[in-house]
């Protein structure tokens, strides 16, 4: 996906920053898993590890696209980068949803959202980013179906984290809720980008803010005694 020409490169840079944050979150989850052997933390670790890999690949593909000598080469590289990133997000959000579902099951309650998660997983498996819709010009690749799937998945996680915040009123939980809410909004803006190129920029800014919110939580958690 490509937005306004002046934004080329900034999106990759933002993804690189998000990659570093995702690695930090994955590392903290791994530390937690090693200490407690809590499976949900293992899923969080795997989820953020997948996200970080996807972010890095998409970011590098973006930079490679900039230095590619041909337009066709640039489109192919960025498209492959996006497809890998999409799959990484699918795996990551799927793992996080599984963590919530399995955790709720451990607590001996039957969540109504479990059915929704299964349905979303099914829809996600049906979706393929291999056929993006070309809207305006060769550089504007539009992926509505994958982005809608990701929006649904991340919305589920945002709801779970929102419920957690509403019951605990804890600031760390608020930052996690905000993060997933911002990520959901970013996917919404990616879906809406054909209506205005600026939506692509807004989507990336919201995505970065989501990761910054996660970083804020991480810093608070690891530094406050």
């Amino acid at each position, binding site marked *: 996906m490509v937005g306004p020409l002046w934004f080329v490169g900034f999106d990759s840079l933002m993804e690189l920053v998000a990659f570093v944050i995702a690695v930090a979150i994955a590392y*903290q*989850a791994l*530390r*937690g898993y090693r*200490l*407690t*052997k*809590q499976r*949900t*933390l293992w899923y*969080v670790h795997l989820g953020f590890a997948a996200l970080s890999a996807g972010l890095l690949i998409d970011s590098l593909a973006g930079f490679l696209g900039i230095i590619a000598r041909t337009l066709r080469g640039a489109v192919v590289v960025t498209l492959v980068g996006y497809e890998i990133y999409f799959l990484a997000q699918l795996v990551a959000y799927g793992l996080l949803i599984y*963590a*919530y579902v399995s*955790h*709720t099951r*451990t*607590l*001996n*309650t039957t969540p109504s959202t479990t059915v929704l998660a299964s349905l979303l997983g099914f829809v996600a498996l049906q979706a393929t980013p291999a056929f993006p819709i070309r809207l305006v010009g060769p550089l504007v690749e539009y992926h509505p179906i994958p982005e809608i799937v990701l929006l649904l998945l991340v919305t589920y996680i945002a709801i*779970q*984290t929102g*419920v*957690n915040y509403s*019951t*605990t009123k*804890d600031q*760390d*939980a608020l*930052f*996690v809720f905000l993060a997933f809410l911002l990520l959901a909004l970013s996917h919404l803006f990616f879906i809406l980008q054909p209506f205005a190129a600026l939506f692509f920029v807004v989507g990336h800014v919201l995505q970065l803010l989501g990761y910054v919110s996660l970083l804020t*939580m*991480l810093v*608070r*958690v*690891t530094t*406050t*005694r």
Partner: protein
Amino acid sequence: MTQKPKYRSQMRIYVDIMRVIQREENHAKPTRILYGANLSYDRLVKHLDELKTLGVIGEIAEGDDRFYELTQKGIEFLNQFRAVERFAGAFGFVI
């Protein structure tokens, strides 16, 4: 989401015991730990032995009384656990 699990994991029992010791200004009698961590006497003895083997608590004899205290390793473990607990709690997971 934040509902507590029905049964405590072994890790949670260890942490509960260590937190009682910490609350008692790092000098706790077995009876205080027993009530604070909500354990039966047999289980308390078993877990205290395990924690001593792990090197996170130490036993001090003062006359006929026995006291338990956290070792440096135990204090570090509790600090690490607190960060992990907050991290997991931020996502809505109870350890």
